[in-house]
């Protein structure tokens, strides 16, 4: 067992556990977006940044940093709140997240985070880059305008379904989640149509066709349920 301090509270954790897992057990809330139980951690969104006092105040993603004996971690502070809010604002400014008519309005992790972190406006200029919508799949659609590049769909497809249909193309803010080698989703030869990517997606970027505004409710917890039910090698 490892003992560490989280926001001044002494906490016990298992060897190999992450700061996020230890915090969760201790009932300390750390906001996350790209992290999803049942999938490998990626540390892509940086919303779970925490400050490690014993590492000279270094900022690390709680979801991808293993605990260490004697570690002193700040999970909630004014500085962290400000940083998390700034990260969130950049996510909003980068693409076109217009809640008003979004299929996920009212059931969106990005929207919930904005409320939780008190994001009442965005200080950065919106980029208003035009992104496409692909409805070529028989059952599902993808709207790149609403994608935060968290990669939960990519991991769900590769790690849980085993199809590895989704991948990233391009660089930086122009990065796109694409099926196979960039063909329309409906023409993918590897997609099984299982919909795990849709359930994993935290926003309205991936959705079930036929769902109108506010109707898309996701079940991201099924990914953990599936992996836990699966016999381990």
């Amino acid at each position, binding site marked *: 067992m490892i003992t560490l301090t989280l926001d001044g509270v002494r906490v016990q954790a298992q060897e190999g556990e992450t700061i996020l897992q230890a915090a969760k057990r201790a009932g300390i809330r750390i906001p996350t977006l790209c992290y999803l139980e049942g999938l490998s951690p990626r540390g892509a969104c940086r919303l779970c940044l925490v400050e490690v006092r014993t590492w000279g105040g270094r900022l690390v993603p709680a979801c991808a940093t293993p605990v260490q004996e004697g570690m002193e971690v700040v999970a909630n502070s004014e500085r962290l709140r400000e940083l998390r809010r700034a990260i969130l604002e950049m996510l909003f400014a980068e693409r076109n997240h217009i809640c008003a008519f979004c299929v996920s*309005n009212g059931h969106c992790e990005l929207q919930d985070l904005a409320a939780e972190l008190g994001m009442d406006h965005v200080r950065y200029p919106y980029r208003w880059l035009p992104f496409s*919508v692909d*409805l070529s799949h028989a059952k599902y659609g993808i709207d790149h305008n609403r994608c935060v590049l968290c990669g939960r769909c990519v991991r769900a497809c590769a790690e849980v379904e085993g199809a590895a249909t989704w991948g990233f193309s391009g660089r930086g803010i122009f990065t796109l989640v694409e099926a196979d080698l960039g063909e329309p989703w409906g023409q993918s030869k590897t997609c099984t149509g299982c919909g795990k990517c849709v359930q994993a997606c935290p926003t309205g970027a991936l959705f079930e066709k036929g769902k109108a505004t506010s*109707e898309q409710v996701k079940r991201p917890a099924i990914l953990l349920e599936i992996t836990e039910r699966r016999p381990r090698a």
Partner: protein
Amino acid sequence: MRHLRIPVTRIEGHGLITVQLDEEGRVREARFHVTEVRGFERFCVGRTLWEMPALTARICGICPVSHLLCSAKACDAILAVRIPRPAEKLRRLMNLGQIVQSHALSFFHLSSPDLLLGWDADPRQRNLFGVAAFNRKLALDGIRLRAFGQEIIEVLGGKRIHPAWAVPGGVNQPLTEAGRDRLAAKLPEALRIAQDALAYYEEHMGAWAEEIEHFGKFPSLFLSLVAPDGSWEHYGGHLRLVDAQRRIVADGLDPARYPEYLGEAVESWSYLKFPYYKPYGYPEGMYRVGPLARLNTCDRFGTKLADEALARFRALAPGQAVTASFHYHYARLIEILGALEKVQELLSDPEILSPRVRAEAGINELEGVGVHEAPRGTLFHHYWVDETGLVRRVNLIISTGHNNLAMNRTVAQIAQRWLTGREITEGLLNRLEGGIRAYDPCLSCSVHAVGQMPLRVVLLGPHGEVLAERTRGA
């Protein structure tokens, strides 16, 4: 040149009126310009069909329900489904709620200050608070009546403004028994208010004789939906046009084929297009829509109290159409009453609680038109989609747009009557505004524009030089 800014305007939009004088100083022409553009038709392109009802509802915060329902109808056409009967009844119920709340807003909140306090009253008094000081009951009644209309929308859609409730194929949640009972309990008061307001108007009509005569009284065509049996309609049916003699010019028009008989002209001086009836050409094919038109086109209302009121309304011009745009107010009050009677009918229909409210389907047509009657008049949503359901093209013809030619004619008529010399007097400004207000125009809807709503009036000499200018609002 004089600038006067008074922060009370009470029209929904941003307008400019120019009055052009000839060499003798008489009014040659007056124009009502709509000076903003919003681009909704453009930025819907590339979105999914299923988002269109909620997306286009954002055109307006007063009548989001009108766009929501009209859009859902256009989507139904693309899915090629007939929506379940209970869904149609629920959509009708919501549209009636929308008509009640919007008409109440127009009459009580926006127009009653002019009617009660007079056109030359102190502008600081000419608002709903002034009305409350003058006639407390009427002001409170207006607020309550509008609240009832909003409550219908809220009970059905979960919120008063921008409910995303109508969806392609129907609606996404049925009416609960508790919701129905909540509305039924409040209906008697709403009916009482509607009758009182109508009686007030009929009693005081004589005092507005001069305005009735000059606020857009001229022959024109009238367009609206009518039910298959010719009675008043707001959701289904077909289109009918009548002329100033109430002779039927065209009947049984398929709304989906509107491009065959309705044209949209463009003028360089306004962002609002000028629809006209094609067989009569432009601008002779001018027609009016909205409450006045609906009462002129229909054979009967179809409910007891409204039909009694309609008989009194028809008596204003026996054997003819009522052509005075001032009486949009009258027509609006009759429609509130009739709409409430129809709400009563729907609430006592057991099918209204049915859970069968949605037809599921994919993309079965690549083009679809939705037409229905918004409070301000006939509304058209026309979409083209690709095989996957992405929107390729959008055309919206908004109720206020249909009245564009008539509103221009109205400001000219008012300027001719009340402009003396080269000064834009307070009384003229108020009447120009009041004339426009009779149409209850929603300029934000009509050009799909947002923003503040000032009205600017510019008086131009024979060579286009600015003689006087006045602005109200900011």
